[in-house]
């Protein structure tokens, strides 16, 4: 088989941290605003960034897709956002949860916390919690801002207001540090959100990307497109020796040899790096002949790849 795609895949997975850092920087390009204590107010904020990034971050170069959706849905003029939904569908079809693995600043933040050398815990037993993020998407992002409106027809952005820790991390804390006016207005809601941020930080030290796994509505939306996205994982069956190293390396609890398009796969490429034969790789477009890519094709579980026979991750 050709070696070039495998080389590119391995390079991509090895450089992922740098790509995440670059994406976080591009998403928050207006760094001097941190010192000024104001927001970027240019036309770029008509567009959404692909990852979860608060538009009240002083440096933010674009709008948060989840915040923007709620802003439109909760406005008196509109009850649904075709604009944001359309943009997210385009991103989902092109990249799927590759965005979570490579482009989301908050995902990168959680991964940096996970690097702190303290005890790590497996999340396999907590797998049912992954369904929570779909409830958050449907309830807090779509239905509540749409239906729970005041007399003027305005709905609250429930996810941003009560659950999202990004607003405090990127918005409230840096703004309050340099702006006494904002500092003076922070109250109980700010404390509640600080508590959520603290919980996410502590969980992120012990678990791999807990917010992405269990709560993120943006990840839930992109997950719906993982089975059809252009960018995805591909397993070359002529090279796979069923050693199970990819499944053990995956911190999202996915066995890429069985379900390469699993909704929880964030295309981080840890399986690419773990594969001793180069059978796993990123691919873009239609998979080639003997490759497995798609939930419609079921693999025969082997003793090595059967998740029920794997030990806990370190």
């Amino acid at each position, binding site marked *: 088989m050709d070696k070039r795609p495998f080389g590119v895949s391995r390079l991509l997975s090895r450089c992922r941290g740098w790509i995440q850092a670059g994406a976080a920087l591009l998403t928050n390009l207006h760094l001097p605003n941190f010192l000024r204590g104001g927001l970027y107010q240019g036309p770029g904020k008509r567009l959404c960034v692909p990852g979860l990034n608060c538009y*009240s971050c002083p440096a933010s170069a674009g709008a948060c897709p989840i915040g923007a959706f709620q802003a439109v849905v909760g406005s008196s003029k509109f009850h649904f956002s075709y604009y944001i939904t359309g943009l997210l569908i385009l991103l989902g079809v092109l990249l799927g949860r590759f965005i979570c693995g490579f482009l989301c600043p908050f995902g990168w933040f959680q991964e940096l916390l996970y690097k702190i050398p303290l005890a790590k815990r497996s999340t396999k037993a907590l797998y049912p919690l992954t369904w929570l993020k779909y409830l958050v998407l449907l309830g807090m992002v779509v239905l509540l801002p749409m239906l729970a409106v005041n007399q003027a027809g305005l709905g609250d952005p429930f996810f941003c207001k009560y659950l999202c820790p*990004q607003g405090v991390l990127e918005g409230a804390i840096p703004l309050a540090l340099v702006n006494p006016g904002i500092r003076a207005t922070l109250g109980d809601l700010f404390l509640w959100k600080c508590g959520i941020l603290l919980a996410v930080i502590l969980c992120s030290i012990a678990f791999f990307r807990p917010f992405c796994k269990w709560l993120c509505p943006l990840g839930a939306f992109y997950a719906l497109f993982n089975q059809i996205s252009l960018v995805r994982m591909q397993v070359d069956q002529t090279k796979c020796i069923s050693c199970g190293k990819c499944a053990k390396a995956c911190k999202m609890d996915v066995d890429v040899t069985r379900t390469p398009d699993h909704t929880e796969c964030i295309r981080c490429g840890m399986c690419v790096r773990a594969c001793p034969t180069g059978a796993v790789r990123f691919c873009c477009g239609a998979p080639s002949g003997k490759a497995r890519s798609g939930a419609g094709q079921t693999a025969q579980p082997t003793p090595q790849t059967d998740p029920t026979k794997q030990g806990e991750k370190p």
Partner: protein
Amino acid sequence: MFLSKRTAAQLILFAAGIAMTVFGVWRGEADTVLYKAINLCLECVGIG
């Protein structure tokens, strides 16, 4: 067969995504997004 279904789904959703985006811009949603994004989101930062 599976691949063709997948490709068809990609094409349909891609076209739907473009159509929805254009329709949303046409009816002024982008201005609502801009207005919200250039002003401090009180709910986001925990002011209320």
